[in-house]
């Protein structure tokens, strides 16, 4: 294992996470890290699984399928492998698994994980819903009230694993929804985990405070905030951090013009990198936030 760690000519950043298995295999073949015999075993196992899935899809009533459908089914087979290999936590461990485990075993374990994540995503969604904010931003309400149910009802890990069967547009903290690398059920799990943490954070503040802050934010753009595609947590966090920087540690969001003027002076003492460190230190000084390690790590990232 140590020898693999030392000699691996690529790292996690070189592997396409939305197409993990094929990307990893491609790198391995390029660098001769997997023998031709093993390469053949892997491809034959994937083909066998694909033919079985295709047979199930057609219920044995068709001897052919369209190429387009074939690609979707094949991606679903690969998705099981992706989920399992990604769960191992590193390209070196994924490579070890590919080399030492039968591909059929990887596929089976991957399917079990996909099913587990499917049920976990529901638990996570319900936790996010427990702290739903009564704020009428259209995409936020859609994702909280409709999108997850569409996914949960229509998702088919067996025949169309990468398709989440719903539309997700509400942006997350520092990230647009479409920028997330994960796909399929992993995407839903990651997305609603983020929403759960954002809702938990925002629920520390009064709803009226949040609405007033959003109103003021909308005034900057000369429109009602409900028509803006903005992340609520981002706006709340910005004001909260600004107040922390001014030494105000309560969970209010109000910033006066005087506060803003003081803030400009305060920020002038920091480089952007130092400011980020300062913000993280200030966040960790708030017990309510620091006690929830998952939320803290999410906010500081």
């Amino acid at each position, binding site marked *: 294992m140590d020898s693999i760690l030392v000699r691996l000519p690529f790292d996690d950043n070189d592997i396409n996470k939305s197409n993990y298995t*094929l990307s990893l295999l491609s790198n391995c073949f390029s660098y001769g890290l997997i023998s031709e015999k093993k390469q053949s075993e892997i491809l034959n196992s994937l083909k066998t699984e694909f033919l079985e899935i295709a047979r199930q899809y057609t219920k044995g*009533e068709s001897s*052919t*399928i369209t190429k387009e459908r074939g690609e979707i089914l094949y991606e679903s087979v690969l998705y099981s492998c992706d989920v399992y290999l990604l769960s191992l936590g590193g390209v070196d461990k994924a490579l070890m698994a590919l080399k030492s485990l039968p591909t059929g075993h990887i596929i089976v374990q991957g399917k079990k994980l996909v099913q587990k994540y499917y049920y976990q995503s529901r638990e996570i969604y319900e936790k996010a819903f427990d702290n739903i904010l009564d704020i009428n931003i259209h995409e936020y309400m859609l994702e909280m009230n409709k999108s997850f149910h569409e996914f949960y009802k229509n998702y088919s890990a067996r025949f169309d694993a990468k398709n989440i069967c719903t539309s997700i547009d509400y942006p997350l903290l520092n990230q647009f929804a479409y920028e997330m690398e994960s796909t399929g059920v992993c995407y839903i799990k990651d997305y609603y985990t983020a929403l759960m943490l954002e809702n938990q954070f925002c629920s520390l503040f009064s709803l009226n405070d949040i609405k007033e802050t959003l109103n003021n934010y909308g005034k900057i753009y000369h429109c009602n905030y409900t028509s803006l595609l903005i992340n609520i947590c981002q706006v709340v966090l910005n004001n909260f951090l600004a107040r922390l920087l001014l030494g105000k540690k309560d969970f209010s969001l109000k910033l006066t013009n005087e506060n803003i003027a003081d803030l400009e002076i305060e920020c002038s003492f920091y480089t952007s990198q130092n400011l980020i460190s300062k913000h993280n230190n200030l966040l960790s000084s708030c017990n309510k936030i620091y006690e929830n390690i998952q939320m803290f790590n999410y906010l500081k990232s």
Partner: protein
Amino acid sequence: MEENIIELFMKNNLSTIALQETILKTNERSEELGLRLSEQDAKMLADESKASINENERIEINSDSSTVKIIEKFMQSTYIGQTDYAQTMAGLIDVFYVAKEESNEFLTDDELIDIMYNFFERESGGSIELLQTRDLEILCREIRNKLNQIL
């Protein structure tokens, strides 16, 4: 490796030699009806099947070939004789895969072959052209309309 594995699959999957042998086995039954396919015919039909599958951008997923089913069904046709047996089968294979696509995969292989046969024997009067351009076209359009209404 990240090249399209489906393209590789389409190139390698169809074993035409195995299909040729299965096609020739249909002679055991067709000879009772006065029809027979030569080895050359069987090769031509196997190649036609492969070409049709590729042209219609499809992938074969099991060895239970539609080609053999088409031959076994249509050998009973009153419109097919020995002189045009192989060529007619080739035409029907092509019609089958086009209709499969045009009907949005709504029909199973067996259903489509049965429908083709019934049209061929009645409305189409033994004409492959009428079968494809008129009778099946009407059916496939109805299927697509019905599916659009449902969706």
